[in-house]
C-alpha cells in the first residue's frame, strides 16, 4: 500500500511520525522549507533548518526509526496532481489552504481514491478528521495563518494528528473509516463506516 501525505507541516509531519509502524510505503509531498520557527510547532528539528520539509522529515524518520519516505518536494498543482497521487492507495490531506485542498478533492473523487482530510481552525479550538465523502472545504482565512505560530497549539495539533493516524491505521488494517470532530476537551465520532 502507498500512502501519500500532502502537506508535512504542523499536522502532516506529526501524522507521518505516528505512522512509522504502519504496513505501507509513505510518500510525503510539500514544497516548503523548514524555518527555525517551525521547530517549535512541527515535527521538524533544528538539523532540518533550511532544508525542504520532505527532505528534513525523511532524514529524521530514517535516523530515528529507519523508516524510508518517498520524498516529493513539490507544490501540488492541477498540473502535477496526477503524477504525484495517481499510484496512491490512500491520500492524507494536511494542507493549509482551500485551493490546494480543492485540487486534491477533485482528483480523489474523480479517481475514487480514498482520502482522509485533517483540518483545524485558526485558534486551535476545533479540528476535523474526515473521510472525503463527508468533507466540505471551508475557505476562510489566509494560507498558512497563525495556527502554527510559536507552537501555541502544538499539543492540540498533536491530538488531531493522532486521530488522523488512528483513522488511517483502522483503514489500512480493517478498511474502516472513522471521521472525528476533535476539540481540546472532547472528541466526537461523527461518522463510521
Amino acid at each position, binding site marked *: 500500500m502507498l500512502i501519500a501525505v500532502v*502537506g508535512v*507541516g*504542523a*499536522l*502532516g509531519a506529526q501524522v507521518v511520525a505516528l505512522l512509522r509502524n504502519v504496513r505501507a510505503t509513505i510518500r510525503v509531498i510539500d514544497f516548503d522549507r523548514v524555518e527555525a520557527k517551525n521547530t517549535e*510547532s*512541527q515535527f521538524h528539528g533544528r538539523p532540518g533548518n533550511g532544508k525542504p520539509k520532505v527532505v528534513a522529515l525523511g532524514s529524521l524518520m530514517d535516523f530515528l526509526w529507519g523508516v524510508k519516505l518517498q520524498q516529493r518536494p513539490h507544490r501540488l498543482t492541477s498540473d502535477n496532481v496526477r503524477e504525484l497521487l495517481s499510484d496512491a492507495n490512500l491520500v492524507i*490531506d*494536511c*494542507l*493549509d*489552504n*482551500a485551493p490546494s*485542498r480543492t485540487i486534491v478533492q477533485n482528483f480523489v473523487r474523480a479517481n475514487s481514491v480514498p482520502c482522509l482530510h*485533517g*483540518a*483545524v*481552525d*485558526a*485558534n*486551535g*479550538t*476545533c*479540528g*476535523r478528521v474526515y473521510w472525503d465523502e463527508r468533507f*466540505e*472545504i*471551508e*475557505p*476562510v*482565512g489566509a494560507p*498558512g*495563518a497563525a*495556527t*502554527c505560530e510559536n507552537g501555541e497549539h502544538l499539543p492540540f*495539533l498533536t491530538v488531531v494528528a493522532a486521530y488522523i493516524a488512528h483513522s488511517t491505521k483502522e483503514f489500512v488494517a480493517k478498511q474502516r473509516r*472513522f471521521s472525528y*470532530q476533535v*476539540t*481540546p*476537551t*472532547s472528541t*466526537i*465520532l*461523527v*461518522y*463510521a*463506516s
Partner: protein
Amino acid sequence: MTNEVTAIVPATARLVAGPDEAWVTVTYKEADTFDLPRPVPFTHGTKEQWRAWAQEMMRTGGIPGRPMDLNADLSNFSVEPVPRDPTHPGGLDFNRVLIRPKTDYGC
C-alpha cells in the same frame, strides 16, 4: 441562585430525541463544547434556524451549566447536519447537528 431554566432541565438530564429531531452540539471556544438542552427539529430544520436557536439560547442563558453570554455570536460558524446511522458499528443512533468554528487550516 437557581436559574429557572436550570431548574426545569438539569444538566444531567437527557431527553430522548425523536426520529425527526436532533441534538445540537456547539463547539464555541477552547474547552467550551456543549449540547443544547433539548432536541430540535431535524428533518424540517435549516442551518440558519439551528444556528439562530443555539445563539439565542447562549445569549439568554438557556443552557444549563453555562453562563448567559450576551455577545455570543455564531454567525461565522459552520453548521453540519449529521443524520443518524445505526447501521455501522460506532455510527450514531440519533441525529446530530454540529455547530463549530470553520476549519480550513492544516499547517
